[in-house]
């Protein structure tokens, strides 16, 4: 059994103007020691998916169905107090923007140790050693003096390391990284990603990368789930996805990336916009932008999951 299994998750936002189906019938799983990349454009629901797992979806968003099985326990059935025991301790998240993710009025040491005190009641010298060890592990130089400093005294790259230290502080089994490197420069990005991979190997962590950057998935992940307009439209191993993408959207995304390794004469471009998630159209949501559509595609239903191989799933009428 996988460590985390999300089944038919639905998170909707009830607004006065209608229902926004931010996450609609989403299923995926991830195991210990494995990384999954959830890829999609802004507004496709990938961030809401991660918040749903932690049950921290902002109002007026609510869970309207599905299961989130973590080690066999359905997180959606837990009380708020029980859920708090999972956050930080078993499941953690690395937030996107290191500049806003740290509380400006508390010291770094204070913020790194908070979760440890909360979940493990460590105190005194043991706590201090643990915090310093964590910061060393994430490559923060001169950790002894830096624990007493405030976030504004850290550079962006260093802050992101602190955010990473906070995430792994209680040795969680699953870490969700929501665009962990978008605000970092390329060389710093590589250092950070390598660091994450090392930690993953040491601790046998399950990692979920939420990103719009296919390069991060290619570098870091074993499996990929492509989200579009609140739904997962293709799920595969990374190798399958790059060599044998099936959904026209996945294909187009891969074809639209400029490459550093080879000269490309003309990039494939996708015209149009993703549909509004507020009262979206019937049927396939990619239809309006699809260049491979045929007669079947105008069906009023969203295409069902088609299992192409054990590890490869696609939701497109052309494969039904």
């Amino acid at each position: 059994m996988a460590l985390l299994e999300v089944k038919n998750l639905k998170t909707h936002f009830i607004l006065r103007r209608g229902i926004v189906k931010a996450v609609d019938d989403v299923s995926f799983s991830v195991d210990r020691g494995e990384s999954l990349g959830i890829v999609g454009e802004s507004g496709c629901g990938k961030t809401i998916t991660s918040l749903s797992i932690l049950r921290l979806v902002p109002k007026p968003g609510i869970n309207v169905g599905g299961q989130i099985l973590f080690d066999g326990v359905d997180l959606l059935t837990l009380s708020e107090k029980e859920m708090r025991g999972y956050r930080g301790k078993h499941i953690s998240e690395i937030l996107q923007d290191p500049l806003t993710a740290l509380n400006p009025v508390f010291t770094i040491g204070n913020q790194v140790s908070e979760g440890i005190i909360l979940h493990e009641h460590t105190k005194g010298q043991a706590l201090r050693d643990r915090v310093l060890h964590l910061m060393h592990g994430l490559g923060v130089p001169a950790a002894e003096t830096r624990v007493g400093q405030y976030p504004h005294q850290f550079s962006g790259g260093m802050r992101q390391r602190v955010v990473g230290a906070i995430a792994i502080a209680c040795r969680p089994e699953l870490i969700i990284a929501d665009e962990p490197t978008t605000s970092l420069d390329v060389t710093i990005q590589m250092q950070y990603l390598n660091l994450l991979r090392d930690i993953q190997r040491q601790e046998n962590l399950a990692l979920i990368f939420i990103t719009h950057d296919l390069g991060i998935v290619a570098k870091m992940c074993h499996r990929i789930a492509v989200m579009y307009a609140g739904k997962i439209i293709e799920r595969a191993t990374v190798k399958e996805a790059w060599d044998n993408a099936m959904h026209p959207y996945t294909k187009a995304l891969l074809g639209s990336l400029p490459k550093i390794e080879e000269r490309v004469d003309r990039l494939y471009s996708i015209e149009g916009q993703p549909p509004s998630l507020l009262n979206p159209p019937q049927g396939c949501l990619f239809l309006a932008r699809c260049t491979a559509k045929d007669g079947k595609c105008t069906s009023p239903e969203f295409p069902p999951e088609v299992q192409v191989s054990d590890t490869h799933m696609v939701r497109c009428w052309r494969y039904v």
Partner: protein
Amino acid sequence: MGRFVFQRLSQSVLAILLLIVLVFILARITGNPVDLLLPADATEQDRVYMIKQLGLDRPYHEQFFDFAVGMLHGDFGKSIRFGRPTTELFWSRLPNTLRLSGLAILLSISVAIPLGVLAGANRGTPLDTWSRVFAVVGIAAPSFWVGLMLMDIFAVRLEWLPAARMGGLNHYILPAFSLAFATLAAGMRLLRSSTVDLMDSEFIKLARIKGVSTPVVLWKHCLRNALIPYMTFVGMQMAIIFSGTIVIETVFAWPGVGRLAYEGIVFRDYPLVQTVAIMQSIFIVFLNLIVDLMYGYVDPRIRLNS
């Protein structure tokens, strides 16, 4: 931090200097300031004598020098009505005002913080709705009127509390509350809105991800940040309350400096009003300075930027 203190200090000195220049110019813009210093029934001889006496026929820069130096020595002239040095009157009345406004500030802060934070954290609940109603009414109602109405209800009709003048502790309740009412409401509203913003922020999200419970998120992570804009407001609030004493002390016949200024207005006692205005301004400017320094302490981004 040292530079920060120095910068704020010089800003305060600048403010007071500007005030003195303004008062000096104002008194001369409409004619000879001697007319403001003499009682209405003074004769022409008195006037000429006074001009000579005070050197008001000399060039303006010399006059300003005398004016400023006089103030530095605490010489603000004599009250027309009381015939005593105005500073003497000011100092004798000051403790009464400080007691009253100190109580009002305490009242305002201690009610605004819990109510504002709770309202912001529980958006849309009845607590939030009622605190917002209280806020809009508090901001809209003129304090002198609130004072009068409270007096009418609690002193005249119900006879629970004394109507006016100083006395035991129960004499403080009505004036302190009337004085605090508006700033309490505004402060609460400010704290509510910053709490609302902060609760949506990334670092609050991170605290929740760590598994921190809601009360701790609210009273530790959120409050410390919400206090930063509130501290600036407290500075302004002290100024509003301190200068608001002129109205409230008038309503409740409270023998403080505000009431003194009111008497100055009624009896056209210009030196008295001028003294109270300048002395109160100096007081408020330095109160603000202290608040700013405390602000620097709360916000490490200011404290540690050298």
